[in-house]
């Protein structure tokens, strides 16, 4: 991609209407994320972390302001283009893993590549490599219900990076696992970031995650309260 930041937010606001009350989830938020960053968004509940990830992930639209991903203004894209952008350039890791329960670990990790129309042999080579990388070799044929929480999150990470996205958005990725598993998962994501240059953007409360981050952005009341680079 180009020289500029992978993600650029300028004066982004998001207002939800609840009955007759307007709730300002984000207020004129501006921020850039460079390629290869390992960034954590933290802040108290209701500070706007998840809203921010939803907007960057093209899952929701900003009320005002501009969000640019790899030079493309998200506000100017239609639903189909947004769907293709999510498929090709954004990886998601969710708190609750959110794997398809009827698919095996291999099939879950393969999903995005299948949607992209990548041919079978290429998919197989890529996915088998990824599953080995995330430590799930030999567990390819297991369904999510036959895997531990940590193993499921590894499958979710493999699915998120399968298409070589510009950024992986991880919403509280360690919230549902014990601290030991969280440590392992963070180690894995750090390794992917360091060795493959995958850009990670986390939202979390977890001090373990914040300790490992090279940049910590603190949100308070929908705006950046502090931005610390390490």
């Amino acid at each position, binding site marked *: 991609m180009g020289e500029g930041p992978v993600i650029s937010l300028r004066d982004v606001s998001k207002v939800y209407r609840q009955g007759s009350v307007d709730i300002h989830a984000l207020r004129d938020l501006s921020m850039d994320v460079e390629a290869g960053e390992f960034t954590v968004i933290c802040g108290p509940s209701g500070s706007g972390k998840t809203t921010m990830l939803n907007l960057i992930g093209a899952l929701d639209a900003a009320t005002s302001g501009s969000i640019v991903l790899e030079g493309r203004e998200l506000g100017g894209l239609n639903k189909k283009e947004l*769907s293709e952008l999510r498929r090709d350039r954004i990886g998601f890791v*969710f708190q609750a893993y959110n794997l*398809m329960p*009827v698919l095996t670990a291999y099939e879950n990790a393969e999903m995005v590549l299948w949607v992209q129309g990548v041919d079978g042999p290429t998919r197989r080579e890529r996915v088998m490599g990824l599953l080995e990388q995330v430590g799930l070799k030999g567990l390819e044929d297991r369904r999510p219900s036959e895997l531990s929480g940590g193993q499921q999150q590894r499958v979710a990470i493999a*699915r998120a990076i399968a298409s070589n996205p510009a950024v992986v958005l991880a919403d509280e990725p360690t919230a549902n696992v014990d601290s030991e598993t969280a440590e392992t998962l963070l180690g894995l994501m750090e390794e992917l970031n360091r060795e493959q240059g995958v850009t990670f953007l986390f939202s979390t409360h977890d001090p373990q995650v914040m300790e490992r981050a090279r940049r910590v952005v603190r949100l308070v009341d929908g705006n950046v309260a502090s931005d610390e680079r390490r």
Partner: protein
Amino acid sequence: MKLLRMAWRNLWRNGRRTLVTVGAMTLALWAMVLYTSLMQGMLGSMESTLLDVELGEIQIHADGYRERPSIWERIEDPEALLAALDETGLRSSARLLGGALVASGEASTGALLKGLRPERDARVSDVHERLDRGEWLDPADASGVVLGYRLARTLGVDVGDELVALSQATDGSMANDLFEVRGVLQSLSEDTDRGTVFLVEDAFRSFFALEDGAHQVIVRSGEGQELLAATGVVEEAAAASVSGVEVRTWRDLLPGIANVLDSAQAAVQVVAFIVYVVIAIMILNAMLMAVFERIREFGVLKAIGVSPRRVLALILTEGALQAALAIAVGLLASLPTLWFVVSRGIDVGQLGGTAIMGVSMDRIWTGAVSPVTIAGPVFILLFIVGLAVLFPAVKAARISPVEAIHHQ
């Protein structure tokens, strides 16, 4: 392929619900195939009784005979007409019709005497095959007659008994004769059952002192020949050979029954549709539940870039798979049932002989099988399933990923 695999596995996440849904579809399909077969059998039997036994497809009468039937209103030269019809290749036969009082012992009633040549009449009518007891007419036995079964009951006669007929002959004299009952017919139609006496042509002419002419010529259309085309041929042959006659199709003669037969097929489809609507509500409910339970999954699918079209296809495939299962099992279950109703039939007991629009039902109600018997219920099932699955499928496809992912 992946979509199909996902859809198939999704079905068995709640196997009991899938089995109940497929079971209901299967039962509905089986019932509709059976119902269609029985209705087709009944309609076919009615049509066969009407055309093969009673009317033929086309009839020719002297002008005005149908409005005011009379022994004197007759086709002057039926032989010329029959010869002309023979040249067209169409099967035809003439009949003589005359009213009389028939009596046996103390019982008497009015009846229509039908005079015919047994050999030629067999080309156009299967009435000789519809005997309940006794034998059909024999030209060698001029005094032998065959009666409708209710007429025989009214007169208290059976095979071998004597029957007196009284009427006015065409020469003005009193016509009276003694006949012997050769046979009694099965139930065919109200008119035939209650008041028809068949006798050979010579006996009829002798009884009514009628030397020539005929009152009715029955014509059968060729195999697979359109009624309209056959009527045109008959009209041409009639115009070329005789004058003062009118050609009418059976639809002109019995428009009420023709309409009933035409609309009965549509009525079968309407009943099938109503039965399926009940099934559709069940499918809709099951699919809505299946979609509601998986809202978060659909949100994730959409978040990772699966298009709404693919989500729609996934749900439709789940519906299609259930329908395919129901069709496979339903048709398999239909085979022995169809075999039974077609080859054995259902004994409707006392209902046998009941007339519908004047045409009698057989005592054994048999089914019929044609491509429509299977295709009709199957296509309606597919249509209804498609309709029932469409709403949940559209709902899943249009789901907002951000709302769906955070759905509790």
